[in-house]
């Protein structure tokens, strides 16, 4: 990097805000999709919107690509650095700027950790609804970029339904203040467009989130099954019966065993083929009524046991097991590939089976833990990235799973984003015209194409252009 640029950035952020030495930069070479790596030239850690904007201006003038990063928990390579690029992290922007319990919103900095948002409003008996499994680490800003989900998005919806406003720093370093917590947007819904744009349009530095009142009663049930099909059928029927659960999560045998052998042990019986974790919330009468109806469906679909959490501690333990499942997979193999496809909820059982068959065909170790209520599957393939032949099989199986799900009317991603991992599969879902429109929108926000280049939008056109890669060696490491 040019010495003048380096000096300008240092003068804005000071030494604490610039990560320049190689050993520290290595920590930023990938997000949680470790298959794809690239060392950034520099990592910048601004403390607020103003510093972010000043840095972005310097980088704009120097023509340097920028990759925004929250906590790096993303699973699609959305925060993977690019060749000759700079990472801008939000780790030092963690303040709650305003909390308005009466109007049920909060204004926070982008680097605030998801779970800290709910902690901050706990005293007002409110919470922030999107709860990705990585919520103890992931940031609200990262959630905005990916339109993150989580188990309770079945009831409350993904991140986009909870974002009222944003302060965005554009690629040129301009500050766009759309933070007013008003439920109706003025003019076009730029906030709605920005959420889920995967860092391609700018960096959100401040976020106005909607807060939700805590329910009076929460009931957590655990249905135990001798086979995964029955658990899937139970979910399909609960949805068809219009029963208002707040979460419907399935874990299969391999996942249960990994969880129970880990620090996240939740008390799931290890001799079951599947567990269905169900949560119902609301007023007591409502919860009791819904729970009774759900229990009838569980029995009809051969749940051999149904357990209810007896207290908050037990409830939290059951959820710790679910949310720690990805971490627990480390016991199966050193690396984990987490697919993130969505399927029509009426075809849950069929498509879970298809993914199982695909992994069997490629001789891969598959475990399933997924947001069954939303039809959002996470086929998890355990592997060892030091084995290149196995890596090839993992990637091919991942592609096959995406193809099968899209053919069945599904989607490439439900909450992890397209990133680098699925960008070439975008053409399965969208026509060249559809993609042209998305590209043209990107160009309006980012005329010099320096914001998170190479992500989300497929490399199209002639072969020569297709070989252009954001990675030093042409392909991800």
């Amino acid at each position: 990097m040019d010495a003048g640029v380096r000096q300008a950035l240092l003068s804005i952020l000071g030494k604490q805000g610039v990560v320049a030495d190689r050993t520290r930069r290595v920590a930023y070479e990938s997000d949680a999709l470790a298959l794809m790596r690239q060392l950034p030239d520099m990592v910048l850690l601004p403390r607020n919107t103003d510093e972010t904007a000043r840095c972005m201006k310097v980088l704009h003038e120097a023509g340097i690509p920028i990759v925004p990063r929250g906590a790096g928990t993303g699973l699609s390579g959305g925060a993977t650095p690019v060749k000759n690029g700079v990472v801008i992290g939000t780790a030092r922007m963690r303040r709650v700027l305003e909390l308005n319990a009466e109007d049920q919103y909060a204004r926070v900095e982008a680097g605030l950790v998801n779970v800290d948002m709910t902690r901050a409003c706990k005293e007002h008996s409110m919470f922030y609804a999107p709860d990705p499994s990585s919520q103890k680490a992931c940031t609200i800003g990262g959630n905005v970029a990916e339109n993150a989900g989580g188990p309770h998005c079945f009831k409350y919806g993904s991140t986009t339904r909870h974002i009222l406003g944003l302060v965005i720093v554009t690629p040129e370093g301009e500050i766009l203040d759309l933070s007013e917590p008003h439920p109706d947007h003025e003019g076009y819904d730029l906030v709605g467009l920005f959420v889920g744009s995967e860092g391609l349009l700018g960096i959100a530095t401040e976020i106005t989130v909607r807060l939700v009142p805590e329910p009076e009663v929460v009931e957590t049930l655990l249905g135990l099954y001798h086979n995964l099909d029955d658990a899937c059928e139970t979910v399909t029927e609960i949805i068809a019966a219009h029963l208002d659960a707040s979460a419907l999560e399935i874990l299969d045998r391999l996942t249960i065993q990994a969880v129970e052998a880990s620090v996240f042990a939740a008390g799931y019986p290890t001799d079951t083929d599947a567990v269905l974790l169900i949560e119902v919330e609301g007023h007591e009468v409502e919860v009791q009524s819904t729970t009774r109806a759900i229990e009838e469906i569980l029995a009809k679909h051969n749940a051999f046991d149904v357990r209810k959490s007896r207290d908050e501690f037990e409830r939290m333990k059951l959820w710790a097991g679910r949310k720690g499942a990805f971490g627990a997979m480390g016991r199966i193999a050193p690396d984990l590939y987490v697919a993130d496809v969505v399927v029509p909820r009426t075809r849950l059982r069929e498509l879970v089976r298809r993914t199982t068959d695909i992994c069997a065909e490629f001789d891969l170790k598959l475990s399933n833990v997924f947001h069954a209520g939303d039809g959002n599957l996470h086929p998890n393939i355990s592997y060892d990235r030091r084995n290149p032949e196995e890596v090839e099989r993992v990637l091919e199986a991942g592609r096959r799973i995406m193809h099968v799900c899209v053919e069945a009317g599904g989607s490439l991603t439900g909450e992890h984003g397209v990133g680098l991992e699925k960008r070439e599969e975008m053409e399965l879902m969208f026509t060249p015209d559809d993609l042209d429109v998305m590209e043209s929108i990107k160009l309006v926000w980012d005329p010099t194409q320096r914001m998170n280049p190479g992500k989300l939008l497929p490399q199209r056109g002639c072969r020569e252009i297709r070989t252009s890669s954001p990675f030093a060696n042409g392909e991800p490491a």
Partner: protein
Amino acid sequence: MSDTLKQRLEREFGSCDVVAIPGLGERPLVAPSTEVVLCEALRLAQADRLRVLPIGLGTKLSWMPALDRVDFVLSTRELAGVVAYEPGDGTLTALAGTRMSELESEVATGRHLLTPQVPGATNATLGGVLASGQSGFDRAAVGPPKHHILGMRVALADGRVVTSGGRLVKNVTGFDMHRLYAGSFGSLCVVLEASLRLFPAPECSFVLERECTDLAQALELLGSISASKLAPTALALDVEGSNAPRITVLLTGRKEPAQWLLAQFKTLLPAATQLETGAAPTNLQHMREADLRGGSWAGLRVSCLPSRLASVLGVLESQLPQLEIHVRPAVAEVLVRMPSKVSAIALTSLQQDLAKIGARTQLRGTAALEPQSTTLARNPAFGLMEKLRSNLDPHATFAGQVSLLGVRGQTVESV
């Protein structure tokens, strides 16, 4: 109106009606029966630099500020029909010209409800409702409609048909272009088809009405409802001149919880009258048509943060000689029936006073009265919005481009 253009459109696209555009007079209306023809009409407009106003059935034409030019109107009313209703998945995909009432009937077969529950559903088309960003009385329960649009297929100004999103309840693939299109009043594209998330139809419902001595008592009762943390499906306050202010509560759900809620609300609203029991469709209809009660009238929609609602009502009460309002407290929204002879100056003054307390206003059906000055140009995002619009419609084929303000109606910002 140019006879030449009408004749030409008739030659190209068959029969051609006319429609009155507020402030401009009559214009030719083309209502293609296929998407191919609709796209041809757009290509013709672009090639000849004609200005097109996309509509459904035109029920919200008066919501837009005066347009400076429209050459012809393009209606999607003939592009109607359900593409896919998936009861097991709780989703619906339909063509833009389908009446909301038809869609409601379709999804009722699977015990689903459509959102938004708009008034006048027999005359409102899906495309028109989504393009106008209209909410219904169900907003308090399920949120604004933009949250439940799963995907859209639209025609761009150059006649290309493009898609965003999909038909699934959860999906983050690609940019959410449909969030940009929804509420853009046809200034970016013509909506051809949309997919929506559906909601369970309630097993039963109850409506309670409570007359209050005055506005102060009504606000006190609404305060006690808010403090109870009980969430009715819908809650409304109607003030109609010298009549007693009236609070209406809609309670829905599974039978047992709904009955329990009813008992709670009877305590919160002593002396309330229960209108009907169990007849969910009738009760829903009662709430839904509230803002059309008394016929179509010129109005002002005011929205604010819940904490400012009492102040907004105070301003309205002090400035309007005879207060006629429909209030949705849970979403802090007030629909104001405007006096038939309000001056532009008085209207501007009212809007400015409301803006000072952080409220936003949108005129409906008052095009002739609209003040000329606009303030959205001060919105910091205006420049970017204009670039987005000109990117999607470089030749300004869509009429809504004249003033970006037009996409949401007259708006006054806080000073």
